[in-house]
């Protein structure tokens, strides 16, 4: 069996440190702002306590999840802009700045908040270049947060990246660890298209080896994190590790599962998935986004269209139900896909 591990997509040996995903994001922002003075960042509480400098207060929060800590001290309040709670205004303003010479990063605290600023993404960021016949580039990054499992209920927990994948003109990435977070964020900021960068709240505290120097990872490329021959499991963001956990369980039963970490949700690396499925003949997508009109349904459709003759079982998925995220632990634990559900689904495909 040939493994599909692409070494550049995994941390290189040596010269790395174990750091948290949150630190990797912070490091990427700081390094790129140091390298390129046109990079600016704006959002709610990204420094915190704005306007209280006369009381000696600077960087009171450093971001709701501390991913932007220290930036204002180094780069000042002209490039690190705390905003009023006005997502439509500051996301739109960042897009306007990006189309006139800046590289603008805006932070939307939770993806659930996109309703109040979706027009800026849908009708300005995504369409300007096309509508204008290529006259503008829009180097805009929207950092936002996804992920259930924290008792935050329905308006602070969704993983709605598929909303954005559906929109031509936007790109999207879902890093799964500190290494991919840093490399993909540096690529996203340097990219000339609007990119939505989805940070999973459940990954911030996780660590992995990360080089201190700058490196980029390609947008639109998946990676194989566990080679296997019997079934292809595709994970997105934190679900990659749920799939890996399930694969370890399945290994005990003699099932050798391959796990692909999708990383990009636009463009989607269909070919990486198809190459794997043509070898394993089975597909199981593990996704924390809801199941209707989603990345998981899209990958299943693509595999059915392009690898139908290779399949020994129907393309299948493990996802939350088509419901909002419930609050009670008793229900939220049911909502988020776990290794047990993945193992059960995989067994069914293997039988």
């Amino acid at each position, binding site marked *: 069996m040939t493994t599909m591990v692409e070494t550049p997509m995994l941390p290189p040996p040596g010269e790395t440190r174990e750091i948290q995903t949150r630190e990797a994001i912070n490091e990427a922002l700081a390094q790129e702002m140091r390298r390129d003075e046109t990079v600016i960042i704006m959002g709610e509480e990204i420094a915190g306590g704005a306007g209280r400098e006369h009381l000696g207060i600077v960087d009171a929060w450093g971001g709701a999840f501390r991913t932007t800590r220290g930036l204002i001290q180094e780069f000042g309040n002209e490039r690190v802009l705390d905003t009023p709670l006005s997502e439509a*205004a500051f996301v739109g*303003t960042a897009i306007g700045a990006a189309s006139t010479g800046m590289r603008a990063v805006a932070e939307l605290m939770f993806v659930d908040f996109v309703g109040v600023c979706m027009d800026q993404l849908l009708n300005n960021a995504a369409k300007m*270049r*096309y509508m204008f016949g290529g006259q503008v580039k829009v180097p805009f990054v929207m950092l936002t947060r996804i992920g259930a499992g924290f008792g935050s209920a329905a308006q602070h927990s969704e993983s709605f990246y598929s909303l954005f994948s559906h929109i031509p003109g936007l*790109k999207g990435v879902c890093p799964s660890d500190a290494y991919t977070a840093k490399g993909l964020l540096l690529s996203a900021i340097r990219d000339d298209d609007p990119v939505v960068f989805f940070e999973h709240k459940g990954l911030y505290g996780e660590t992995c080896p990360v080089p201190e120097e700058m490196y980029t990872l390609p947008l639109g490329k998946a990676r194989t994190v566990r080679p296997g021959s019997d079934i292809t499991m595709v994970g997105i963001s934190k679900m990659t590790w749920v799939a890996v956990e399930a694969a370890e369980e399945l290994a005990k039963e003699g099932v050798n599962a391959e796990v692909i970490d999708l990383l990009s949700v636009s463009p989607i690396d269909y070919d990486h998935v198809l190459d794997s499925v043509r070898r394993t003949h089975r597909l199981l997508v593990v996704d924390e986004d809801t199941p209707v009109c989603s990345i998981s349904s899209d990958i299943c459709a693509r595999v059915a269209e392009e690898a139908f003759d290779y399949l020994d079982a129907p393309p299948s998925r493990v996802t939350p139900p088509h419901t909002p995220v419930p609050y009670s632990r008793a229900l939220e634990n049911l909502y988020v896909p776990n290794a047990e559900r993945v193992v059960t689904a995989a067994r069914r495909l293997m039988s």
Partner: protein
Amino acid sequence: MAPDRDTLLELYRTMTTIRHFEERGVPETGQRGMSASVHSSVGQEAVPTGVCAHLTDDDYIGSTHRGHGHCIAKGVDPKLMMAELFGRSHGPNKGKGGSMHIADMSKGMLGTNGIVAGSVPLAVGAALTSKIQRLGRVAVAFFGDGGANQGVLHECMNLASVWKLPVIFCCENNGYAESTPVEYGLSVANVADRAAGYDMPGFHVDGMDVFAVYEAAGEAVSRARAGDGPALLEARTYRYYGHTVFDNPLTYRTKEEEDHWRARDPLLTFRNHMIAQGNVITAEELDQMDEEARVLMEEAVAFADASPLPEPHEIYEDVYADYPVDMMRRGANMSV
């Protein structure tokens, strides 16, 4: 500051060019089967003219669905605009934008926009760029009385005030949001009254009088350029035609009202003013500019008709700076 003779000539030339573009271009576009998304600004010429007279190509404007006048006043070539309306590849947007998305970045024109108040944050963003990079540029965000009630405008006025950005929020109040009268949809007497809520100066001027617009805009632009922050400028004006060519405005307004406003026509007002001022600009000079505008539109229509249609493969171009084309057509069973 009163406009000098050269400026006066330029003001009239801009107004008559807009008038002729609308009167010729809108029906010509309709004859080519693309009239659904074209909105005439006839009657409103004084507003973009008086405002943009204070701007250079380096300054920015964001425009509306009724934006041909903004484009012309900001210096976009009417021939290229006509090609864009006809969906031709020589349009500034290569025929992929049309009337509601005309953009010319070389002129600081950030696009007409099909979303009500849609270009406002883009103009604010351009003002932010100017402030950070110390470019000394200003931005003007045009919107209508309908746009005055959009949430994003209010967020942007607050943000621009908090950050003291060099941006002018310019409301072209033409009395109607589609068929809804402004007095029904607006909670205050004048849009400009809302400036107080955002701690910025509010100007309310007669939008049929290019001199009034020019004077107020001059003050607002000077403040912004000097780093004194944003302003809200409301120009009360009137659109002579319906919301679109399919709209009969007499279903919601009276002939008497239309006649009242047409009697205050901005081009006619300008002409009368010049005569009253002792022929600073003569009637013959004005006639000459009208004729030149008429001829320019003849040329524009011919230019647009001669411009090639976009090639089929262009459907995939300029969606992104970099993206696999295969991903755009995969699974769609496209013929190209």
